[in-house]
């Protein structure tokens, strides 16, 4: 009954039936069908609901520009995809699909009540309807918009598929495999150039797949296509890629391609990538993307069964499906007449050809008459009838600008053609200019910015002969630009169906235009009335009209709607189209999966995880980890039953009372060597270095030229001409880059070499009163007594037999050492120290304990206690500045007026009134918590911890004029509306005399 398949027609394989489901119902089609063609073959036009008004919607096109027939597809658990174009999804056995934007069912949708509330959803409704009353926003409007906005539903599961990426270089990349693209490919490939041809369709051939009747080079079009594809496929220098969309055109002829590999298969090979993203760098690019048919804008033009004439021709010839038994053609272009003839020849009863033009080529009139098709020229369409499927169209004659009496024609499909728009989206990506061609009534490519050629319908040319000739010329032009020679190519074509047409604004009507639902953008439900309203309400720029009405802002980027919207906007503005301007097309050409863009960079490959040589020990011993820059660092080592708080308290106690061991390998390390090393260090760092003897180390402070703290770290002088510089964990690459910059570009005369050695060394920090007792028996080549190896010393020696750079330094305030050994020995040394430390209950600690211990001593962390606006004086470490030095990076800035001004934020300590209260890091500080909001904030908490050693909380903060507020009470408002009081102190909370560093 509902069989619209025509035997013997189409390129589908009738010997391979395929069953799939749509909204739970099983349908059958043939191999080669899309979901759209298979549903149409079963008489189903209704494929979805509109986004705003939930009006019933059918398929409109046969390609990737489809705005309406968006479906959800499911290929198993986690493999649901919304908004798939039914016109692009090939069917396979087991495919499950569903319609969108409907509830409870596609045929009966309660959301269609919105259609009655039409006035609420006019242009700018986002900005108007929902503005008042304000209290409705949270509870009513926002949930409503969230439900209404967006198409389909997002999948929630992790995508189990994987996606591949490739690079490709070729001489000529051709986008589009219609006659223009194929002719270009033949010319280019025959010269020996490496050629890649891509096409988004499952099959190559472009418009030829919908035009079998012409003869090319004496062969029927499809035979010529097969011969040509075979010739190209047989050439080693040619790569043909179907199901591959050129999604974006980037600088210097890089084109992004997305190749779909498995979405058409019922049996997906294990481990096959679903899609592959190609980055192609092409010598020359040829865009042969054809043109997109424009809808007619009239009341009811969105009813299922109303579709593009060219799409009907594609469904007929490529899929062997008639879209209706009794179609009406509504056109202003000759091309749709041929659709009428082809359908009539296939057995359809074409009810009428309605053309808005009065002057029709006699040959077309003749051909219509010979098929007994009624022709109505100089007519407009003013309405359609039917609910879930068009049943009639209302047409009226237009004479001298007056719309005459209406007549209703029964039909089951309306096939419209409002002219053709050259497909220049990729060309627009290159910022090539588009020039208005008054004759073609279209924007055509103008000034080019890339090595690109446009061929065929993209240049406004019409017909297969013209496309072939232009394609061959584009191929020859590309070869010429590559410095190659092209052979001559001409193509004899008979039976070509050339033609002309006009484009227009919304069709004239005898009814109130205000109540017409004449859609321009089917996907975003924008009507002609919306565009005119936007102009009346003051939108002058096409960019504003676009955003106010959302015309062209849906997932199809206005492939069907932009030109109609522009035409109507220019009419409303009383300007010519080129005066109104164009909106911008941006990549991707069609919606692209995040999976394809992410490629291999997901899961553990999303970001590098740097691990220290001791990381494996930490993992085996139950460490909790935290990310620091790209490193993962042991955060704390919980014992059974311990939470973080308990573990950190225990680690702090153990280190202060006896012995702690810490993996500091992530510290950045840079070797500065050469005869001018000390001069270089003097210029880079604030501190003086000339008098630092080999074997000594010093805290180094690095500023930017603006005087603000950039980095810090202990720096050891190994020899006269060799410094072992340490940086913060996150700052290593930045510091090296900054050093290289000054060395290469400001002081190239200095004889200095910089080497990153971060990963050459494993660094183990040993802290606590028993640190020396642990190390001394293991060290050879260095007297470990306090006299021979005092605080801030460095030596090359061996530790537990490993060659080592041993520092006596402390970031805890306890007696401390840092042992650097070649990275490969890191874990072995760690294990030897753990074993040797047993008598002292040696305790491994992580970054959290490190933070607490350093905060108890007021040692700053760059980037936590500083934020790029803190000077050495602000941070209370002005002592690190070599005041006698004539210059260093940032010195001049320390005398800038705003740097020496009063009232700068300064780093101070805070002790809460309630010792149990641990402030929130980042919390704002005020003088008076009772002041009205917004309160004046005078600083913020930078570091805040529970100090086990002090039995109370401690905090550091930057506060305006903080050094002058010692002893004052400040207030820290909390999120619950309360406030905490805290007293300003110095930053050194523990052992202010520093006696613990000197323990014997």
């Amino acid at each position, binding site marked *: 009954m509902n069989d619209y398949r025509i035997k013997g027609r189409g390129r589908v394989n009738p010997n391979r039936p395929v069953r799939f489901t749509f909204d739970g119902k099983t349908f059958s089609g043939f191999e080669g069908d899309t979901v759209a063609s298979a549903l149409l073959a079963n008489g189903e036009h209704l494929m979805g609901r509109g986004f705003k008004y939930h009006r019933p919607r059918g398929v409109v096109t046969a390609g990737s520009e489809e705005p309406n027939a968006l479906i959800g597809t499911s290929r198993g658990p986690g493999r649901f995809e919304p908004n798939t174009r039914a016109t692009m999804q090939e069917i396979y056995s087991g495919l499950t699909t569903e319609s969108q934007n409907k509830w409870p069912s596609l045929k009966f949708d309660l959301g269609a009540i919105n259609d009655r509330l039409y006035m609420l959803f006019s242009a700018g409704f986002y900005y108007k309807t929902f503005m008042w009353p304000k209290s409705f926003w949270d509870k009513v409007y926002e949930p409503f918009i969230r439900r209404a906005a967006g198409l389909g539903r997002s999948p929630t599961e992790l995508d189990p598929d994987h996606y591949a990426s490739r690079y490709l270089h070729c001489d000529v990349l051709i986008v589009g495999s219609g006659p223009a693209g194929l002719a270009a490919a033949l010319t280019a490939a025959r010269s020996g150039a490496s050629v890649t041809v891509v096409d988004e369709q499952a099959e190559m051939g472009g418009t030829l797949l919908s035009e079998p009747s012409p003869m090319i080079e004496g062969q029927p079009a499809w035979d010529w296509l097969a011969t040509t594809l075979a010739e190209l496929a047989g050439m080693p220098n040619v790569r043909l890629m179907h199901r591959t969309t050129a999604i974006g055109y*980037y*600088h*210097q002829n*890089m084109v992004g391609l997305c190749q779909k590999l498995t979405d058409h298969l019922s049996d997906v090979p294990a481990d096959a990538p679903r899609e592959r993203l190609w*980055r192609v*760098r092409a010598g020359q690019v040829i865009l042969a993307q054809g043109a997109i048919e424009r809808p007619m804008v009239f009341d009811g033009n969105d009813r299922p069964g109303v579709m593009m004439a060219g799409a009907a021709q594609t469904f007929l010839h490529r899929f062997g499906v008639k879209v209706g038994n009794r179609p009406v053609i509504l056109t202003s272009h000759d091309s749709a007449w041929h659709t009428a003839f082809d359908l009539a020849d296939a057995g359809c009863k074409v009810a009428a050809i309605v053309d808005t033009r009065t002057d029709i080529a006699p040959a077309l009139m003749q051909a219509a008459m010979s098929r007994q098709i009624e022709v109505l020229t100089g007519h407009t369409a003013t309405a359609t009838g039917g609910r879930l499927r068009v049943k009639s169209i209302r047409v009226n004659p237009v004479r001298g600008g007056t719309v005459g009496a209406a007549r209703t024609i029964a039909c089951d499909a309306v096939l419209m053609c409002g002219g053709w728009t050259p497909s220049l989206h990729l060309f627009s990506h290159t*910022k090539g200019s588009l020039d208005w061609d008054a004759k073609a009534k279209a924007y055509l490519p103008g000034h080019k*910015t890339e090595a690109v050629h446009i061929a065929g319908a993209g240049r406004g040319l019409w017909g297969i002969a013209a496309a072939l000739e232009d394609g061959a010329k584009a191929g020859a032009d590309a070869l010429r630009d590559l410095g190659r020679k092209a052979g001559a190519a001409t193509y004899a074509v008979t039976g070509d169906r050339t033609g002309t047409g006009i484009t227009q604004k919304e069709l004239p009507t005898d009814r109130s235009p205000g109540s017409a639902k004449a859609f321009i953008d089917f996907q975003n439900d924008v009507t002609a009335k919306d565009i005119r309203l936007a102009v009346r309400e003051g939108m002058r720029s096409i960019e504003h009209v676009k955003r106010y009405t959302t015309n062209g802002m849906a997932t199809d980027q206005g492939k069907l709607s932009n030109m109609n919207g522009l035409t109507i906007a220019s009419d409303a503005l009383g300007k010519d189209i080129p005066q109104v301007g164009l909106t911008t097309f941006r990549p991707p050409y069609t919606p692209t999966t995040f999976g394809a863009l992410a490629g291999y960079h997901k899961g553990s490959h999303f970001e590098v995880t740097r691990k220290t040589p001791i990381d494996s020990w930490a993992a085996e011993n139950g460490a909790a980890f935290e990310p620091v820059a790209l490193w993962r660092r042991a955060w704390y080592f919980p014992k059974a039953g311990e939470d973080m708080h308990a573990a950190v308290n225990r680690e702090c106690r153990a280190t202060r009372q006896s012995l702690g061991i810490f993996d500091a390998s992530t510290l950045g390390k840079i070797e500065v060597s050469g005869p001018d090393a000390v001069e270089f260090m003097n210029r880079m760092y604030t501190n003086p270095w000339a008098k630092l003897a080999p074997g000594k180390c010093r805290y180094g402070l690095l500023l930017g*030229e*603006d005087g603000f703290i950039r980095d810090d770290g202990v720096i050891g002088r190994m020899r006269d001409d060799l410094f072992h510089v340490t940086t913060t964990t996150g700052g290593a690459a930045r510091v090296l*880059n900054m050093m*290289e*910059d*000054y060395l*290469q*570009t*400001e002081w*190239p005369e200095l004889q200095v070499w910089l080497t990153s050695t971060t990963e050459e060394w494993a660094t183990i920090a040993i802290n606590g009163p028993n640190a020396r007792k642990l190390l001394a028996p293991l060290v050879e080549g260095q007297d470990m007594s306090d006299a021979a190896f005092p605080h801030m010393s460095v030596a090359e020696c061996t530790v537990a037999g490993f060659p080592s750079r041993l520092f006596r330094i402390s970031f805890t305030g306890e007696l401390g050492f840092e042992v650097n050994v070649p990275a490969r020995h890191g874990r072995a040394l760690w294990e030897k120290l753990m074993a040797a430390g047993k008598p002292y209950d040696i305790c491994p600690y992580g970054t959290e304990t490190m933070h607490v211990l350093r905060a108890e001593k007021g040692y700053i962390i760059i980037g936590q206690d500083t934020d790029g606006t803190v000077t050495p004086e602000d941070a209370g470490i002005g002592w690190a500045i070599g005041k006698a030095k*004539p*210059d260093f990076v940032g*010195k*001049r*800035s320390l005398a*800038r*007026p705003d740097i020496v001004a009063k009232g700068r934020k300064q780093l101070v300590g805070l002790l809460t009134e309630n010792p149990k209260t641990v402030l929130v890091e980042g919390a704002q500080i005020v003088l008076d918590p009772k002041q009205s909001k917004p309160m004046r904030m005078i600083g913020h908490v930078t570091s805040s911890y529970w100090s086990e050693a002090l039995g109370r909380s401690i905090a550091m903060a930057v506060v305006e004029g903080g050094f002058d507020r010692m002893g004052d009470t400040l207030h820290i408002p909390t999120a619950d509306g309360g406030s905490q009081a805290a007293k300003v102190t110095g930053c050194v909370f523990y052992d202010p005399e520093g006696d613990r560093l000197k323990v014997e």
Partner: protein
Amino acid sequence: MLLINCPYCDDALPELEFAYAGEAHIARPADPSKLSDEEWRDFLFIRSNPRGLHAERWRHIHGCGRFFNALRDTVSDRFLTTYPAGQPRPDVTKLEAAE
């Protein structure tokens, strides 16, 4: 993705290998202490920010590691030329005439 010609490696290589490093031809004063506050402010913060041709520094950070200069059009992103650090800004009219 741009292709950038490193004048040291003498090869056009993907943008991913390079890092941008600000406007070119702004030398650090030999003796900053001689500069007035206004002159030092200008050195620190004031940049030309042109719409069009811009002389700027790049570093071939994932290659030879060296800093070099480039003339780039900030509208089209097109590189007119690249040249080693320390060389004067090339004459644009000559470059364009040569094209």
